[in-house]
């Protein structure tokens, strides 16, 4: 059987029949629609909130994936764009300035403004690569956070470390996300509302990412990642495409940020520290850099894992009758161990793209061959020598 070309867009990688594909799609749709009900019934309301956060972080991680995964630009200040989106929404829909602009206006505005900030970061860093770029982006992220922290005097723009409170919840077509709504006998609580809204936007972000990846623009990004000089020699305008990557990635971050602000009802600078940037980067790297499904998996795992590790306390009580080690002490340790283990055994990420997987496998095979070849006296070499 001839090997299928690399799967494009949403097409099926495993070569399933259209019927099986349809069934799978129906199953996935049902699972996504019923997820909050199932999670609520099985694990409790707190986990519906985690589900909402999974959606938010998926958007963030997919945004960073454009910059780091596609274009190969290591960005350690990515959370700054999340902050820009969050503060834009907070300032324009809270009593702080007495502004109450509608959601449908603020969401695209957040994408746009964050995108502009993305270009602002991108412009001076165009000639930087790798670790140098990482340092500059790290600085940029910190500048934004410190700016938010200090801009309460002489003119109170951001309300400083106290942050902005009483942010208006999102209203879509007159339906407030913050209230429970009854559809027939079914009551849909606030967390469910947000889930469905985030789901729609996450799917949109996934769609845009997938379309970009398998396009002329996406190929040019990967070319820049693989070899910037060769990309230029192939006619790629590396300056514009890098700026575009920064802007696109940042705009996803801005969208996620504005949703976060209304979801929490409160923003403060301390939500946007370096650790958050690192966490989003971990989602991208751990899931599988440049592979959309992998990044979604990475985001889902890294949001749920710390929550799941809270059960260490009850687990100990169940096993030993008492809590020996406080869960809060163990949580980050286990989290760190999990990261190390994954990166050791799956260096390309948990779910890498097919071609990346093949390349890593090939590299490993070559290394193995080198070892075995040495042991058997290099008979292959002897055979090919003239």
């Amino acid at each position: 059987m001839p090997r299928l070309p690399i799967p494009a867009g949403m097409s099926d990688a495993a070569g399933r029949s259209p019927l099986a594909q349809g069934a799978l799609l129906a199953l996935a749709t049902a699972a996504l629609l019923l997820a909050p009900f199932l999670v609520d019934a099985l694990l409790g309301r707190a986990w519906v909130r985690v589900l909402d956060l999974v959606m938010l972080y998926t958007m963030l991680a997919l945004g960073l994936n454009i910059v780091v995964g596609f274009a190969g630009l290591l960005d350690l200040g990515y959370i700054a764009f999340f902050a820009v989106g969050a503060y834009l929404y907070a300032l324009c829909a809270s009593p702080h300035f007495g502004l109450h602009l509608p959601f449908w206006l603020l969401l695209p505005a957040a994408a746009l403004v964050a995108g502009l900030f993305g270009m602002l970061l991108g412009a001076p860093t165009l000639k930087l690569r790798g670790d140098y770029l990482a340092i500059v982006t790290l600085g940029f992220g910190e500048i934004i956070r410190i700016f938010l922290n200090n801009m309460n005097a002489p003119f109170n723009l951001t309300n400083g470390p106290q942050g902005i409170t009483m942010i208006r919840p999102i209203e879509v077509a007159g339906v407030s996300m913050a209230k429970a709504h009854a559809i027939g006998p079914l009551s849909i609580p606030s967390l469910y509302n947000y889930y469905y809204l985030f789901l729609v936007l996450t799917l949109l972000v996934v769609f845009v990412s997938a379309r970009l990846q398998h396009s002329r623009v996406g190929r040019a990004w990967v070319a820049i990642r693989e070899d910037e000089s060769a990309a230029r020699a192939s006619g790629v305008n590396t300056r514009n495409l890098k700026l575009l990557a920064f802007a696109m990635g940042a705009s996803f971050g801005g969208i996620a940020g504005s949703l976060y602000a209304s979801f929490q009802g409160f923003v403060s600078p301390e939500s946007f520290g370096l650790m958050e940037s690192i966490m989003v980067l971990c989602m991208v790297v751990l899931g599988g850099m440049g592979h959309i499904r992998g990044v979604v998996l990475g985001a889902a795992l890294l949001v749920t894992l710390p929550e799941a590790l809270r059960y260490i306390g009850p687990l100990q009580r169940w096993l030993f009758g008492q809590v020996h080690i406080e869960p809060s002490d163990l949580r980050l340790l286990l989290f760190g161990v999990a990261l190390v283990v994954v990166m050791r055994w799956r260096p390309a990420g948990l779910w890498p793209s097919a071609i990346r997987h093949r390349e890593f496998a090939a590299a490993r095979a070559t290394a193995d061959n080198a070892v075995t070849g040495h042991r058997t006296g290099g008979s292959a070499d002897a055979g090919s020598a003239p």
Partner: protein
Amino acid sequence: MNVGPEPLLRVHGISKAFGGVQALSGVSLEIARRSIYGLIGPNGAGKTTLFNVITGFIAPDAGTCTLDGRRLTGEPVHRVVQLGVARTFQNIRLFHQMSALENVMVGMHARSTAGALGAVLRTRRVRDEEARMEAAAHALLERVSIAAHADAPSGSLPYGLQRRLEIARALASSPKLIALDEPAAGMNASETASLRELIDALREDGTTVLLIEHDVRLVMGLCDRVAVLDHGQLIAEGVPAAVQSDPAVIEAYLGAPAAPVATAVR
């Protein structure tokens, strides 16, 4: 010096210094349309620098390059590609995690237009362009005889095929002039022979070829004209036979004939 009524590429008075080292001083040459032009010289003669100046990778201190009367000097690399000069690299530089086909499709970047919005909306125009590019990329892989490896990651191809893929990627921008930086480096005799056939065929198709090469036999057998650089200066230029017997060239390669003893002792 003047090789025809209207040369394709005109290099005029190019000088370039790196710190205190004068890599090129006042190099001028002209490359005729549909010819194969060789650039040779000992190591450190400035061949690669000149190559980088022509392809826009390095800005010269003085002098200009024009292609078909249009100025290349001062343009960014992607514009130079758009104007019709494509290149390969001495140490092959492919996009390893992309398939061979995708590598060639990236090479078409300058000859296609779809932007981010078009990519997301996937309009009819974008779909058509994508299909056209894919077909053209397949044809180019066919052209350099690696069509069977279209879907293989380019990093997994054997060395000789990687060279061919790099040439296909350069051809993807439909260049008027293709500049090959030591394409035969590291190739065995049969690979070199088939490379030679390929370069010959490029000329037949109407592409002009600029070739840096260490394999003197390949250069002399293939090129219509040859230029020799030494210490950043053009010391000879002409048809291969004339250049080969030029005393200045022999001196540059073998040392001055007046001091054979000193050379031997050293």
